């Protein structure tokens, strides 16, 4: 019964979303306050209905209701409770419901916190947001209904893929969706602004927090996914340029571009049309990502469902929303008149450079991702585009971005003197160069990637610190430190996020350049060298887990005779799915991770063992976290909080 209620709530949510789409739009057109206000209630109601529906599905997973097809396919009574709950979104139908839930959540947030928006703009934003809801609710109800019952329920389920039974992956989708779907708010604001024919500083101030929030969630989601790949897949890789990863990375790059260009609109009333276009593209790429993950047209290891019917439906959604928005843009972009002028050398120009680099980097990844499809359809060639291409094609953009970032971040608005900024940055440049040279001198016979990465990362990082220092003004140290504490949060956020970006650049290059790998057969009791460490296979045990059996090795790591760590890498077997997994054992360290994996017993006795020293691995996750933290700091800036509560002139008529 409760399942039918959930199903019913979902259908009702579709009806409410339809109302939310049509009524406020009509109300805004004829300036009817009453009709426009319908949008607020509809957005809140839609969220409650979808939320109820989601709670029902979670409940079905928790009590293992095997009359539901989706529960049978993805759950099992013996599965730990955590994964029963997270299993709700560990499948196509459930994850789509989560998608729609977050979409409705953002709509409801706009209704609740949007009190200071001009009424027509708010009505139109909610209407556009509602229309996205209509599309996805229809998609779910017509092609991927999570509430389908089975006529004959089986006694037990087929279990969730053991690889997904992991905390890192369990919470990675919600963050990713918060990011993907968060960009729908920027999209709704962009389309609403096009309908209004008006983009100004206030608009940018409203759109920026949503974009910033979406970007922070995407950063965390991508970081979590990468961390999961690192410790779970068992060979220490952290990024594979897989189509599904690219699907999340393209919106991240575009969101990063968008939140920079929105600053220009907010502070200088320039780049308006471009910012609106970016907002449309960022959400468009979220939809493309959804299409790639769920249609199966592009081969990927971790695609969800390979169903052409669903693929066509998403393609239709993509065409209607992106196509529609771009058409509207073509007609109305002319109305978005720029006010602020700027000289060639100015922060505006630097941000234009940032936008070109980020947007083209995203497009290059897009071209690489769909090229196999294009080549097959257009030229009849079956080919592949993988890591070597993406590394070569993407790295130059990050190199250029890293070089201009510290300079651009310190340039004044409007008209700037590069010489002054460069002089301020001399210490950072010298420090970065010396670190790079030191690394080059210390390493022998390896790629230049490590030293160059260190130099670039240090340049960005110390550049961010220089920026912070310069913001504290001049004079005595005490006065500067006092001013440091009073800086706006947005300034701190900028420095933290840029610093995090520098650390990420360094960590990525260090991990790629300085990783040590060792593969060998080891007898029980035998020792072998790994870099400056010695690893001994002490013993191998058989262990029984809650829903798996495990072969667990005990390995002692020492350095110059002193114990460093004892690690227990495992090989697990999940009987329900008949699937083995490897659980690497990692000794996390500040400068390096020691990463051990146990393999199969060998014919001649002994065990296959893979071991790695992963330099600066933790710096990568720390860099991602710092970027997310920087975004959050910026989000908590006074001007967003104050703007949210302050009374403001209402109902600015469209020109």
């Amino acid at each position, binding site marked *: 019964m409760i399942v039918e209620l959930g199903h019913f709530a979902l259908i009702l949510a579709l009806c409410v979303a339809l109302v939310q789409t049509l009524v406020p739009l009509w109300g805004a057109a004829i300036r009817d306050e009453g009709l426009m206000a319908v949008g607020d209630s509809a957005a809140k109601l839609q969220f409650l209905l979808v939320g109820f529906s989601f709670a029902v599905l979670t409940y079905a997973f928790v009590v293992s209701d095997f009359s539901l097809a989706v529960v049978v396919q993805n759950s099992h009574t013996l599965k730990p409770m955590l994964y029963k709950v997270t299993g709700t979104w560990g499948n196509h139908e459930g994850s789509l419901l989560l998608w729609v839930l977050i979409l409705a959540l953002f709509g409801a947030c706009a209704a609740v916190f949007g009190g200071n928006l001009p009424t027509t703009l708010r009505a139109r934003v909610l209407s556009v947001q509602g229309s996205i809801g209509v599309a996805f609710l229809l998609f779910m109800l017509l092609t991927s209904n999570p509430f389908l019952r089975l006529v004959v329920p089986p006694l037990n389920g087929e279990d969730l893929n053991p690889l997904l039974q992991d905390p890192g992956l369990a919470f990675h989708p919600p963050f990713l969706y918060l990011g993907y779907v968060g960009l729908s708010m920027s999209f709704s604001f962009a389309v609403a602004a096009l309908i209004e024919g008006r983009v100004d500083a206030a608009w940018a101030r409203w759109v920026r927090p949503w974009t910033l929030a979406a970007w922070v969630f995407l950063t965390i989601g991508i970081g979590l996914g990468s961390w999961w790949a690192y410790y779970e897949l068992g*060979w220490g890789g952290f990024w594979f340029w897989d189509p599904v990863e690219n699907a999340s990375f393209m919106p991240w790059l575009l969101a990063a571009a968008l939140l920079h260009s929105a600053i220009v609109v907010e502070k200088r009333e320039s780049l308006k049309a471009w910012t609106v276009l970016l907002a449309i593209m960022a959400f468009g790429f979220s939809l493309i990502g959804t299409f790639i993950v769920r249609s199966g047209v592009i081969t990927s290891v971790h695609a969800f469902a390979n169903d052409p019917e669903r693929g066509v439906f998403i393609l239709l959604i993509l065409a209607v929303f992106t196509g529609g928005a771009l058409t509207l843009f073509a007609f109305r972009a002319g109305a978005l008149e720029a006010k602020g002028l700027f000289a060639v050398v100015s922060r505006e120009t630097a941000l234009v450079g940032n936008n070109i680099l980020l*947007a083209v980097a995203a*497009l290059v990844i897009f071209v690489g991702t769909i090229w196999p499809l294009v*080549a097959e359809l257009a030229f009849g060639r*079956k080919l592949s585009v*993988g890591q070597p291409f993406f590394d070569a094609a993407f790295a130059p953009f990050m190199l250029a971005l890293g070089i201009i970032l510290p300079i651009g971040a310190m340039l004044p608005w409007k008209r700037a003197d590069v010489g002054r900024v460069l002089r301020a940055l001399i210490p950072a440049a010298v420090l970065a160069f010396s670190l790079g040279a030191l690394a080059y001198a210390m390493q022998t016979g390896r790629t230049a990637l490590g030293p160059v990465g260190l130099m670039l990362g240090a340049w960005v990082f110390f550049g961010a610190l220089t920026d912070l220092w310069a913001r504290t003004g001049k004079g005595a140290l005490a006065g500067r430190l006092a001013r440091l504490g009073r800086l706006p949060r947005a300034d701190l956020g900028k420095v933290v996020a840029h610093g995090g970006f520098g650390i990420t650049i360094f960590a990525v290059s260090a991990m790629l350049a300085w990783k040590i790998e060792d593969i060998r057969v080891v007898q029980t009791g035998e020792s072998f060298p790994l870099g400056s460490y010695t690893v001994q296979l002490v013993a191998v045990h058989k262990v029984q887990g809650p829903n798996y059996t495990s072969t667990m090795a005990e390995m002692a790591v020492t350095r110059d005779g002193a114990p460093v760590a004892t690690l227990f890498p495992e090989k697990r077997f999940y009987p329900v799915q008949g699937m083995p997994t490897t659980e690497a054992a990692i000794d996390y360290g500040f400068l390096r991770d020691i990463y051990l994996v146990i393999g199969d017993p060998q014919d001649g006795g002994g065990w*296959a063992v893979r071991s790695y020293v992963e330099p600066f691995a933790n710096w990568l996750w720390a860099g991602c976290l710092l970027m997310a933290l920087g975004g959050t700091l910026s989000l908590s800036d006074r001007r967003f909080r104050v703007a949210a509560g302050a009374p403001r002139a209402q109902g600015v008529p469209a020109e």
Partner: protein
Amino acid sequence: MKRLVLCVLLLATPAFAVQPDEILPDPTLESRARAISGDIRCPVCQGESIDDSNAPISRDLRIIIRERLVAGDSDAAVVDFLVARYGEFILFNPPARGANLILWFAGPAMVLAGAGLAAITLRRRRQGVEAALSSDEEARLATLMQDHAPRP
């Protein structure tokens, strides 16, 4: 779909892609072999290189690569040998030839186009604004100029 299931199964134990018994005693040859196999796509597990894949065919390919290298082939000859048998599909690094030039030059072309477009737009806007006095303003300016014209 079946292929996908198979790959997920194989993905589960990727730790033992390269088995200890495959490794060549000569470290130079071995590192060349690793470099080649890192760029070859597994024909079964299409998301992985044969260096990471556990599929039996990947193991066979890794062994073939090592045999060719021991026999004295150059890296390019080994790759050609594989492409001749499995097609262009197995190359993760698409060669910059023919239509693939579009792929390789897409990035630089887009940057140039973007920078050019931005430069033109910004220049036009600046010039546009400098000349952008409305007719009212022109008239007002003219009267002002007349009022303040140096009197003889």
